[in-house]
């Protein structure tokens, strides 16, 4: 297992800047999730670390070893992609053994057997070891491709949206599984997603990327409770943070241009009147779509609220965030 360092990494594709001076330390044994919308630079970062792509500027090291000029095979990393690519003519066992048979590793047969059964156990696919890879469900196939990365026991795991093609139930099961595999094995894991639930629930650290720049790096709770900008604040939280003109409630500090309010930062029953535009019942909670001085905002209330469209609710901010003209957080 190893620490990964990116120092001043830049990459462009033609006129498009994919990564703009990214410096980041992925601590040994951490589960780092890169979060951002399409085009933020998440996958590019992963490809730089894996060696599938080369930075134009900057350095990448894994476990203190400079990666410049090393091929993916020489870097001792394992990748898992969104689209599982298994060998269809081989069994699950043979698929899992395959990386161990590489000329670099040349694992002895009994050792190989032990590792495969260990990994199969962890991923709960022991009973399917002798099935053809193509006889599996989508979730099982993805577990096998994760397993194929696990058996190699690499310095770093790199995963690019490995759960996004699975259905909701399986995704939530595998989230917990992946998290516990990582925690128990102490592996270093760099993981790309645009799903904030995955980021929040699995990561020890989240790296928020915005158009090629790393704008915040920290524990999920830090980023949620202490975002550096409107952009970072908007990455996490459902419903999304409300952003309104700073002076709409009065009492904004100097330099504040917008006020940011998560549902828990809106106190209901006190303050000024807002109008209920729409009630959205999600079962476990009910969302209130409010109109406040011509601004729309969304907050959460009790699932069985008796409020209805057209009612008024008093609201006031409670420990809100304030942001300046460029969206940076004022503290």
């Amino acid at each position: 297992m190893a620490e990964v360092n990116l120092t001043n990494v830049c990459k462009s594709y033609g006129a498009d800047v994919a990564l703009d001076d990214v410096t980041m330390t992925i601590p040994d044994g951490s589960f780092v999730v890169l979060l951002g919308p399409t085009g933020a630079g998440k996958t590019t970062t992963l490809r730089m670390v894996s060696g599938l792509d080369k930075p134009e500027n900057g350095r990448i090291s894994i476990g203190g070893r400079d990666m410049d000029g090393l091929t993916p095979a020489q870097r001792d990393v394992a990748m898992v992609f969104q689209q599982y690519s298994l060998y269809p003519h081989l069994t699950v066992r043979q698929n899992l053994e395959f990386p161990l048979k590489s000329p670099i590793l040349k694992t002895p047969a009994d050792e190989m057997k032990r590792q495969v059964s260990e990994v199969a156990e962890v991923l709960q696919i022991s009973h399917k070891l002798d099935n053809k890879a193509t006889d599996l469900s989508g979730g099982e196939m993805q577990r096998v491709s994760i397993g194929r990365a696990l058996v190699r026991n690499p310095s770093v795991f790199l995963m690019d949206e490995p759960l996004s093609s699975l259905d909701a139930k399986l995704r939530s099961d595998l989230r917990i599984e992946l998290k516990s595999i990582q925690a128990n094995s102490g592996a270093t894991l760099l993981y790309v997603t645009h799903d904030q639930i995955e980021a929040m629930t699995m990561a020890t650290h989240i790296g928020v990327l915005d158009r090629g720049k790393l704008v915040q790096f920290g524990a999920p709770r830090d980023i949620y409770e202490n975002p550096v900008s409107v952009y970072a604040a908007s990455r996490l939280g459902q419903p999304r943070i409300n952003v309104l003109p700073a002076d709409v409630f009065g009492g904004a500090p100097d330099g504040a241009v917008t006020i940011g309010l998560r549902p828990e930062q809106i106190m209901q029953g006190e303050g000024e009147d807002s109008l209920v535009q729409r009630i959205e019942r999600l079962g476990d909670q009910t969302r209130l779509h409010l109109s406040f001085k011509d601004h729309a905002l969304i907050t959460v209330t009790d699932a069985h609220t008796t409020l209805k469209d057209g009612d008024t609710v008093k609201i006031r901010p409670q420990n809100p965030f304030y942001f300046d003209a460029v969206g940076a957080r004022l503290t």
Partner: protein
Amino acid sequence: MAQIRIENVRKEFGSFTAVQSSSFTIEDGEFFMLLGPSGCGKTTTLRMMAGLELPTSGEIYIDGDEVGQKPASQRDIAFVFQMFALYPHMNVRKNISYPLVSQGMPKAQVKKKVSEIAEILGITHMLDRPVGGLSGGDRQRVALGRAIVRDPKAFFMDEPLGALDAEFREHMSQELRALHDRMGATTVYVTHDQLEAMQMGDKIVVMNHGVVEQFGVPQDIYDWPATKFVAQFIGSPPMNFLDFNGMVSKDTDSVDLGGVHMSIPKMRQGANGDLTFGIRPEHIRFDDSADYHGRVIATEYLGTTQIVVLGTPNGVIKARIAASVNVTIGETIGLAFHPRTVSLFDAISGKALLSEANEGVLGRG
């Protein structure tokens, strides 16, 4: 606009039954969701309503007229697909006008109609642009415009947001719902996403294996699922199931769960044997004085709340509690279940047992 009534509709493809005899009514102006996993028969049901597929048996009424065996062209409905197809060589205005022009509507009238629709959809400024350069969202608005412009009796949509990424989907779903509220058109919408169904729908039909499992307003379905399937399919995380073997008699208001006395809503029917105690994650409270215990296996931080995964004598369950509560993996916690929210199921048939709490929703049949 229109009321749509489905009566005993059934569809077979060879020896495979895609839709078992199904009945439900979509009221005029409703936003109606057909929800279920892939292969459940929801798209087949929609296609039968649209006339793209003819039912093997049963009747379909649109505004009282039986249309079951009529082709799509005679039903006056508009269909919006997941992959919105636009004419690439035409600009936005021409794409939207096309259905009217091909009906032979006078030019001046077409122009007026198109500007009205463009206004509703907020695309007036792009009417003269080619569709090639539009973003995904704008393309979808144009596709909607082309469906709306004909003033059909109803809109049918088959996972229209399925191809969009999560953030944008959320935005478009709000927009679609707001558009529906402005126009009041009967809309039937197919999705496999339970959150989308809860968020957008006035009513939901939940289907599984070609069978209608439950039909009703979203909050009722969430609170009082008719079957274990519905309880698991709706809600994230889904309803927790604690399996036990025992007997409940009519009028009882407690069960014995792993030797612990649990209060439940007063039962309206009795049952015996393999039963399931169902409780939603947000209805579990941590209570040091409770006799029922769980051991913390994992936690998932979600910002406002957290999901705590617990091992109990009756299986693994998930509780949703405030993120501010400190929870340590491995610790044992007393668990209290909000008695008014408990559902009991027959573990074999999967059907909910009637109680004073759910009879208002399920008792109707």
